């Protein structure tokens, strides 16, 4: 079945370290902005998709927006792995006629409120299978996202001879784009590889500059059918493919019991579907927006998605032939759980990105890594 869906509106708040407003207000502001971008009104909306981790219920957002009725609503789990899947859900809903216009959103005070970079005792003590899974890791001292990635990164370095500099070039690239993006937290603040190497150790082998920021902000995306999209304010950005993926023996950030610890099989699951649905492959991608909460997983994604062979991503990034995270990524722009990356993909197709890549027709966007994840292929 081919998706008959397009992104017609994107909206966001400012990205900051202290929004000074509730997460619900952030969600409302981003949603209103996205609807205005599309030339739509709240009364046009009949579907909302959020994150399980979001503190805002779909109905709370609907109330604040003045959306009269919802015929479709859902939440996707697994942290930032949900990002592209919210759009997938929306695309399925509009393709099947379950909804006409769907808002996908993420709003978080992740710096001024609950900081993901700290040890979450709540994550370890939740009474469900995820709490049980975490019991093999948190009490032993592995309690931050950075540390969970560092475990795989160490193995990747050992097996392929990758270096901290290979990780660092991902950060340098992202911060380079952020430096020319006025919406980015690190606007006008590029970094060098030497600065990366001098940044302090967080969870060895990861350094501070291997880690994304903690941010306050919200992003909303409006999805409707491709047919309806033609009549709206912006040139439609078609959803050429949308997929979720979970791999063998999957855990949340701690899939340490598989045969190998050097890849992201769940992203491989996503990749196979994206290329099959879209009839494209990695060589067709003009711009890649790859989820970058931590630099090593950007390298592993490039390999899972077929841009290069196993263990070759360091050299691939160094060569610099693929425009990557042109908004500055979550390392440079903001950490909005991957939703700001979808917005950048839309801008690159529209031709309105601040770091516009000429003749962009196909954009790949991925969601959170190390967790059950998702991806999108966007096209003009």
């Amino acid at each position: 079945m081919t998706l008959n869906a397009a992104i017609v509106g994107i909206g966001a708040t400012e990205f900051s370290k202290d929004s000074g407003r509730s997460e619900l207000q952030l969600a409302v502001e981003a949603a209103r902005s996205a609807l205005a971008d599309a030339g739509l009104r709240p009364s046009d909306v009949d579907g909302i998709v959020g994150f399980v981790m979001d503190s805002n219920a779909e109905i709370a957002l609907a109330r604040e927006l003045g959306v009269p009725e919802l015929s479709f609503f859902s939440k996707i789990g697994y942290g930032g792995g949900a990002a592209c899947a919210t759009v997938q859900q929306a695309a399925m809903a509009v393709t099947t006629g379950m909804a006409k216009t769907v808002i996908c959103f993420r709003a978080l005070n992740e710096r001024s409120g609950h900081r993901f970079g700290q040890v979450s005792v709540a994550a370890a003590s939740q009474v469900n299978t995820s709490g049980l899974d975490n019991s093999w890791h948190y009490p032993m001292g592995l309690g931050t996202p950075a540390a969970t990635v560092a475990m795989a990164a160490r193995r990747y370095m050992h097996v392929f001879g990758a270096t901290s500099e290979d990780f660092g070039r991902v950060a340098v690239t992202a911060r380079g784009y952020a430096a020319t993006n006025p919406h980015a937290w690190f606007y006008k603040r590029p970094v060098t590889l030497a600065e990366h190497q001098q940044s302090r150790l967080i969870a060895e082998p990861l350094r501070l500059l291997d880690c994304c920021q903690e941010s306050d902000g919200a992003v909303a995306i409006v999805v409707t059918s491709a047919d309806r999209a033609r009549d709206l304010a912006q040139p439609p950005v078609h959803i050429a493919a949308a997929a979720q993926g979970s791999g063998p023996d999957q855990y949340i950030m701690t899939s340490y019991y598989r045969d190998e610890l050097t890849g992201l099989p769940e992203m491989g699951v996503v990749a196979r579907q994206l290329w099959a649905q879209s009839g494209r492959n990695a060589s067709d991608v003009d711009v890649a927006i790859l989820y970058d909460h931590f630099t090593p997983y950007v390298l592993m994604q490039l390999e899972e998605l077929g841009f290069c062979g196993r263990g070759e991503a360091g050299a691939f990034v160094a060569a610099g032939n693929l425009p990557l995270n042109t908004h500055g990524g979550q390392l440079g722009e903001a950490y909005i759980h991957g939703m700001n990356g979808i917005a950048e993909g839309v801008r690159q197709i529209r031709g309105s990105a601040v770091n516009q890549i000429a003749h962009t027709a196909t954009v790949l966007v991925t969601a959170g890594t190390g967790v059950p994840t998702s991806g999108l292929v966007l096209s003009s």
Partner: protein
Amino acid sequence: MTDIAKIAEEVMAAGLCSPRAGRDPVNQAMINNWTEAIGDTNPRYLEWEAPPAMTQVWTMRGLHPVSTPDDPLQIMSKALDDAGYTSVVATNCEQKYSRYVRIGEELTVRTRLESYAGPKKTALGEGWFFTTESTWYAGVEPVATMLFRVLKFKPGAAGSVGKPIQPLVSRDTSFFWDGAVEGELRIQQCGKCGLLRHPPGPTCPSCGAAKPGYVVAAGTGTVYSFVVHHHPPVPGKQLPFVVALVELPEGVRVMAELREVDPASVHIGMPVQVGFAPVGDFVLPVWHPAGYTPPAKPVYASDLPELTFDVTPTLVVSTALATRDFQDVHHDRDLAVARGSKDIFVNILTTTGLVQRFVTDWAGPEADVRRIAIKLGVPCYAYDTLTFTGVIAHRDGNEHVIEVTGRNSLGAHVTGTVEVTLP
């Protein structure tokens, strides 16, 4: 000169503060409360003499203290509170007794600031030390003196960030944690097809059988990957620390903290062996380098009979109140935890009393305690066990100098010297 140093110089220059009278005359009721709480059955405290270690109790200021503006301890405490050094811990206490005080005597105390030092980096955080010298009088006769050294520090600058994280246990995983208590590293094994699996689950992903059993692993393995954690702080861990994912010869991987190792020496392929560490109500598996032998439990020499206290909450609270010490950390667990402590803990007046009891239990009721000088180490929290040992360091006729140590599960809670004259 800092403001704190300036205030300290002024207080030192002012010398002795005005005399402060005890709230009650020396009386049998308070002595009884104290001896019951300490567990001291010395018969001489039943007649007309008070325990020398109680001297400070007579002039404690009670639950609702009246302000005494020229008291050096108060002036310094306020100055340091205002500068952000809000936490306090006593570090040293040296008491000398000219004679035992008697029922009906009315004591007064005068105090001066003896010295100060700071700011200093300490294990607890940045802080200032200061020492006060107090003298107790019965009428005009000095009966006891005390040098009292405290550290006022900025909390949170170092140390704990909360209680260690404990595992969530289900009926599918309890065998593993029960095994750790027994000193066994248990790996789930399917009762039908024999598949080994970690982490465990209720059914076999290979054959589907719901017949989980387990085998006890040899306890060896090699490092498959590892993390050296530097930031942020992790509850219950000292930074930096190593977490290792270890491949077992049985064919599964088990992750745990790798202890007793220089982080820089850890490498993939490094041989390790399992150990077990109690954390709260649980025992966690930990990894040690292969060949590691845990230090033998030390045996401490003691000329005096060892004396062991079960530090129950009742002991902590009853002794705190019997010494008229109403600091919340000695009776209110919620507040003690909120202030960064593991639990309520024994106050210094009680530690002094326990040291005295340890020595006089041995020396007998006829012995006179002349001096108790103690240095405080690790806190003594409720639910711990405190064991005293003592050696006779010096003897000159009837004069004995006893070196006393009180240890609990965290280490040495108190070390000190007691001078006692035997009959």
